[in-house]
């Protein structure tokens, strides 16, 4: 049995940031399914928001304005105290990462460069070419090396050990050896990223399955606002690899088959830089109305007018991706794009410090939901979320552990949980069913994107829920072909799927019950926002029969809900 005072699950930005914060004070270790630098945060392109006012066009930008944009972008579902905290901390957090080595792009004066992003009143998104996430991720990993933070890589968390109202540790599957390992701890910080792979057409990494999130869910940790799923307007047609919002921030156009910049119809002022939910819906409407290019499921992202120079300097990664994956050089041709699933606004229900219902259990990053993104996240705010709340949860966890009197409790619970997990996995391995779990996975993804997608309505979602439940039933009848130990992808993917089905159900139920349109949750049968009934967070709690939905109130401080126009 391994023992560390604090365990951080996930080596993405949020996990690393948390570990960096707590490691100097309390013995902290990182557990990650992949090596930290492989984490999905590395795929983030566009940038990270902070009101540094470095851009000449943003001289009078302040954190209050950032907060307002965020709240408005969230369609007023964000908790405003959390938003204020995040936007206030943004500057210091960005400077900190810069001091640790993050190679941000620079302005003429040598300061951190900032670009315009959707839904923001000022150019406020700090960037490093179009690989911001990767540079930040590498920087934080490097920092963790400097601090000598122990790392357990190639380990996937398969169970959470809770006893009474406190967390005791986690059970991990060592992917290299195939053995189950017990990690005991005083506090656990979950930073396992999003669960985008539940959806088809996802821009997320293939490991963004939310496996740790669903594990917690099954152990009684409630999920919040799961029905809010962001669709990014511009993902490559076919592979759904992301074309950053920065492409539009730098001045890219969206064009339909008639050659119109159709955004003028939907957001005359902000045009291509309206928030993501609006742009995605606009593109989807164009496609649905037959104005996709050649009548197909995509429109064009046109960057040609930016010129070779600017594309090479500001968007080199985008260019490589377009060349490698659709064989289009944006310098010469417009890029075919379509909306794709991008971000899960919802997640493990936490308070402003990342704390959950269980003592010692924290969550940060995309897997959690403090709620700073509400019903729709602004581009560049989630990288900020990971570092600000990663840091916060690290701090709070360290304080909690330092203030704790008894340690190393719960060996019994650890062992019991290990036995249960072992039985669960052995059970899965010995099933001799007729179903192929990858088919179930594909059907789930298809169902979710088609029926709980950009536009939703009751009949579709009911169908989706029925489908997901049918898939769950079929899952009981799968076979895992690979009975081996080392790097058993077959087993891992089956375990992931089991969790994803639970979460998919929570998403569908939450979405069905929310009878309004708000942010990314856009219902054809309830087109208006309903602040009387639904200015509330959806809380889904696991039960074997399906999620139990309750609601909790939204914290409104300064900004009173009003209509959202761009």
């Amino acid at each position, binding site marked *: 049995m391994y023992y560390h005072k604090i365990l951080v699950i996930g080596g993405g930005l949020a996990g690393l940031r948390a570990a960096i914060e707590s490691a100097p004070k309390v013995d902290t270790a990182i557990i990650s399914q992949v090596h930290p630098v492989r984490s999905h945060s590395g795929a983030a392109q566009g940038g990270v928001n902070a009101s540094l006012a470095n851009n000449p066009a943003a001289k009078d930008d302040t954190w209050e304005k950032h907060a307002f944009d965020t709240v408005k972008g969230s369609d007023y579902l964000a908790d405003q105290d959390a938003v204020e905290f995040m936007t206030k901390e943004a500057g210091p957090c960005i400077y900190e990462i810069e001091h640790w080595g993050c190679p941000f792009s620079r302005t003429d004066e040598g300061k951190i460069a900032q670009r315009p992003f959707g839904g923001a009143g000022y150019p406020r998104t700090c960037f490093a070419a179009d690989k911001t996430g990767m540079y930040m991720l590498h920087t934080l990993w490097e920092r963790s090396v400097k601090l000598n933070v122990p*790392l357990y890589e190639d380990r996937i968390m398969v169970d959470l050990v809770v006893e009474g109202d406190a967390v005791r540790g986690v059970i991990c599957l060592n992917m290299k050896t195939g053995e189950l390992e017990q990690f005991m701890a005083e506090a656990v910080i979950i930073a396992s990223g999003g669960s985008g792979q539940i959806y088809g057409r996802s821009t997320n990494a293939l490991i963004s399955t939310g496996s740790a999130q669903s594990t917690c869910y099954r152990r009684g940790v409630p999920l919040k606002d799961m029905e809010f799923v962001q669709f990014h307007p511009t993902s490559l047609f076919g592979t759904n690899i992301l074309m950053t919002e920065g492409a539009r921030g730098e001045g890219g156009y969206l064009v339909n088959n008639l050659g119109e910049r159709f955004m003028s119809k939907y957001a005359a002022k902000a045009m291509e830089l309206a928030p993501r939910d609006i742009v995605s819906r606009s593109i989807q409407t164009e496609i649905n109305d037959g104005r996709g290019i050649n009548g197909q499921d995509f429109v064009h992202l046109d960057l040609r007018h930016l010129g070779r120079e600017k594309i090479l300097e500001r968007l080199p990664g985008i260019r490589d991706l377009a060349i490698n994956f659709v064989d289009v050089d944006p310098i010469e041709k417009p890029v075919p794009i379509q909306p794709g699933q991008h971000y899960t606004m919802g997640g493990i229900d936490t308070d402003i410090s990342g704390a959950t219902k269980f003592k010692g259990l924290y969550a940060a990053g995309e897997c959690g939901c403090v709620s700073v993104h509400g019903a729709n996240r602004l581009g560049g705010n989630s990288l900020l979320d990971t570092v600000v709340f990663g840091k916060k949860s690290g701090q709070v966890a360290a304080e909690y552990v330092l203030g704790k009197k008894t340690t190393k409790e719960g060996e019994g619970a650890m062992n019991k949980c290990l036995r249960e997990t072992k039985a669960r996995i052995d059970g899965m391995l010995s099933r001799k069913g007729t179903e192929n779990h990858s088919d179930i996975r594909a059907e789930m993804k298809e169902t979710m994107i088609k029926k709980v997608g950009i536009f939703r309505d009751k009949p579709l979602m009911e169908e989706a829920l029925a489908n997901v439940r049918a898939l769950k039933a079929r899952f009981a009848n799968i076979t895992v072909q690979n009975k081996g130990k080392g790097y058993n992808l077959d087993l891992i993917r089956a375990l992931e799927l089991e969790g994803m089905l639970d979460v998919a159900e929570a998403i569908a139920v939450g979405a069905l019950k929310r009878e309004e349109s708000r942010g990314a949750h856009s219902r054809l049968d309830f087109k208006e926002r309903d602040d009387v009934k639904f200015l509330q967070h959806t809380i889904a709690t696991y039960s074997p029969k399906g999620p139990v939905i309750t609601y909790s109130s939204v914290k409104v401080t300064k900004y009173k809900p009003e209509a959202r126009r761009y």
Partner: protein
Amino acid sequence: MSEQRVATSKVAGTWAWAFQRISAVLLIVFLGVHLYAAHFMDVGAETGEEPLITFDEVSLRLDQLLYIVVDYGMLSMVLLHGLNGFRTVLFDFDMFVRRKKLIDVTLWVVGIGTLIWGIVILFPFISGAGG
């Protein structure tokens, strides 16, 4: 997690490398002179009739200090460059890196030994022509 130790000691690395380059360039010069002198230049009275290297011819040549310098210089360069290069080759392999001390000492002994040997070899030529 492995400990973060500094990769290696800072022994001859830099100098060995620099020396290999410097000796390489010098060698090109020496080699040019050596080959030209040995094969294409007639120092002796005899002419093109007997182009092959003969004892007398070599002796005659080595009468001049310049050629003694060239030949000995070349010899030492070749040895240093060659053995230093050989050392590089060895240290590209784990098993030899582990025996670094031993190899360094051995190579120095071999090098100096050979140099003396080489110096001695040419004595007959030098003295032969003189006496």
